[in-house]
């Protein structure tokens, strides 16, 4: 097999044999691959910023000293002290190690789950086990008390649980069971951690119900979630039981999916979008199935087959042209009626663009979000805070729009000078 032969030659190259010797007897096209590998190995990449590296080393040593003096008491959330808010959220980073497959029977369900059993139901599959070793890096000291429960490990903004016919605030540490419903408000988020350390993160204005829950690790896992609206991220820990299932249902569309690191969004118009970060997702609806690979996304409109997956394109850059076609970071992005532009970015501003590639290779922007105003586009004024809404503030009579990207110091109250 070519792959084996290439690896055998690469191993010899890595062991110090000359390129010529390693390439001997190889077909020209494979020799080219060997050359490419050798070329990559010869590249010298820049080193680190010495000052930053030294600072980090000092921080690490300080943290290690602190840790070595700690008692057996639960660790504080170190992430909360880190400078970047992204890590302060304290969620998991999960390596996805297994391929999941599920065939759904309901035509109105988007499902992400494990494969149908090809061995006796419930029997652990020990094949390929060396690679299913999972190294969880969990920043929360919380855990679900038992497989039939999940615990809320992170909340931001308005997070509520539906209980006894009404919505009530849900706090970190709250334990959920099958049948319970959780929702987030605007600019809010929440993370549910299951017993097997899989997790679901709700984005803003999202609403999910736990339909079935038995996230055991000593048998087939069952997690079924209905997502009525909003955005969720799912990180599913590998299970050695082929009968395990992890399902996300949406009101529009049905799916059979592979993969354990993916994002599901359901818009107000009930359009489901599935994007995959790792692994693969097979989305099915109207008896049509598409396979969505890492880096791709598909869209499912109610009553329609899933769209053919498209490769996502994304990045950050400075806007040099706006209009029907935007130029961002030197690349052109077409826009259409589905393009969402947030923050009113102008020429010179720094933005993030997310889009997809058309079959003809042109880039289409799905969203363009302002990240940083150009100096020339900025303004500054001071005033008294008169009102503080979720979407806008009034400061000395002026309306100031705020969004998820607005940086707001803590402790500001009505009447403060800002």
């Amino acid at each position, binding site marked *: 097999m070519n792959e084996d032969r290439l690896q055998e030659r690469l191993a010899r190259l890595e062991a110090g044999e000359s390129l010529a010797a390693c390439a001997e007897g190889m077909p020209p096209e494979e020799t080219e*691959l060997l050359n490419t590998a050798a070329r*990559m190995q010869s590249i010298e990449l820049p080193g680190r910023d010495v000052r930053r590296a030294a600072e980090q080393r000092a921080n690490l040593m300080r943290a290690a000293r602190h840790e070595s003096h700690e008692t057996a008491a639960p660790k504080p959330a170190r992430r909360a002290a880190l400078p970047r808010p992204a890590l302060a959220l304290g969620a998991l980073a999960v390596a996805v*190690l297994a391929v999941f497959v599920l065939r759904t029977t309901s035509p109105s369900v988007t499902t992400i789950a494990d494969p149908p059993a090809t061995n006796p139901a419930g029997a652990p599959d020990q094949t390929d086990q060396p690679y299913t070793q999972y190294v969880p890096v969990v920043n929360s000291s919380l855990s679900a008390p038992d497989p039939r429960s999940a615990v809320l490990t992170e909340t931001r903004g308005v997070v509520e649980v539906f209980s006894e016919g009404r919505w009530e605030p849900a706090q970190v540490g709250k334990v959920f069971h099958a049948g319970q419903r959780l929702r987030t408000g605007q600019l809010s988020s929440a993370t549910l951690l299951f017993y097997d350390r899989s997790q679901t993160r709700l984005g803003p204005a999202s609403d999910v119900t736990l339909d079935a829950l038995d996230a055991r690790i000593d048998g087939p896992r069952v997690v079924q979630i209905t997502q009525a609206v909003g955005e969720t*991220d799912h990180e599913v820990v590998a299970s050695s039981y082929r009968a395990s299932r992890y399902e996300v249902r949406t009101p529009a569309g049905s799916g059979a999916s592979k993969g354990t690191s993916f994002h599901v969004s359901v818009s107000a118009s009930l359009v489901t979008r599935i994007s995959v*970060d790792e692994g693969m997702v097979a989305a099915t609806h109207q008896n049509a199935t598409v396979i969505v690979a890492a880096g791709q996304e598909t869209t499912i409109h109610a009553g329609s087959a899933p769209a053919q997956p498209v490769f996502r394109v994304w990045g950050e850059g400075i806007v040099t042209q706006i209009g029907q076609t935007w130029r961002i970071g030197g690349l052109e992005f077409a826009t259409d009626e589905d393009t969402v532009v947030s923050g009113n970015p102008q020429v010179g501003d720094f933005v993030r*663009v997310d889009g997809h590639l058309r079959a003809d290779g042109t880039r289409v922007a799905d969203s363009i979000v302002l990240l940083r105003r150009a100096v020339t586009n900025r303004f500054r004024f001071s005033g008294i805070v008169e009102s503080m809404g979720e979407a806008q503030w009034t400061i000395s009579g002026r309306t100031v729009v705020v969004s998820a990207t607005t940086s707001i110091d803590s402790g500001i109250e009505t009447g403060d000078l800002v």
Partner: protein
Amino acid sequence: MQPDSDLVARAQGGDVDAIGALYDEHHVSIFRYVWLRVGDRHLAEDLTGDVFLRMLDALPSYRSVGLPFRAWLYRIAHNLLVDHFRRANHHAPVALDFVEDRADGNDPSTATAHRLLVDRVKRALREVDIVQREVIILRFINGLSLQETALAIGKSEAAVKSLQHRGLAALRQTLAEEREQVIR
């Protein structure tokens, strides 16, 4: 230089100097891996620091059986990047801006040639499938073995073997096309 296994054992026993030594041993290669994944030098610097803080958190749970320390550390970096990309709107971005300050004080012409080469490779890597790209970076730039790469990204050796083959083919094709464009 002590082998990682000794350092790790000491680090797990609370030896702060051993933790520093592990940092010294691995921080540059972790940085390069992260840098090539995120495409932004400053962000990569920050994320590299986070990798080692996570390492500190997870050290008590590390067991050397079946998972070499270096692969385990790259697994942490891989997990952190997955987490980072998800937070950055669920995508694994490749920065469009590739203009970065580079720390080198070499001969200007050599430095320029090197910058061009690195830029070219980065551009070519951008065209390669995400998972293939990660395998190429780990295998041929960071020098991980087939087994270590498999463990770091949570795939089988057979899968990595296939990914490296397809990744090298895609990379070779892209580099060749770019060269043709330059010649024209």
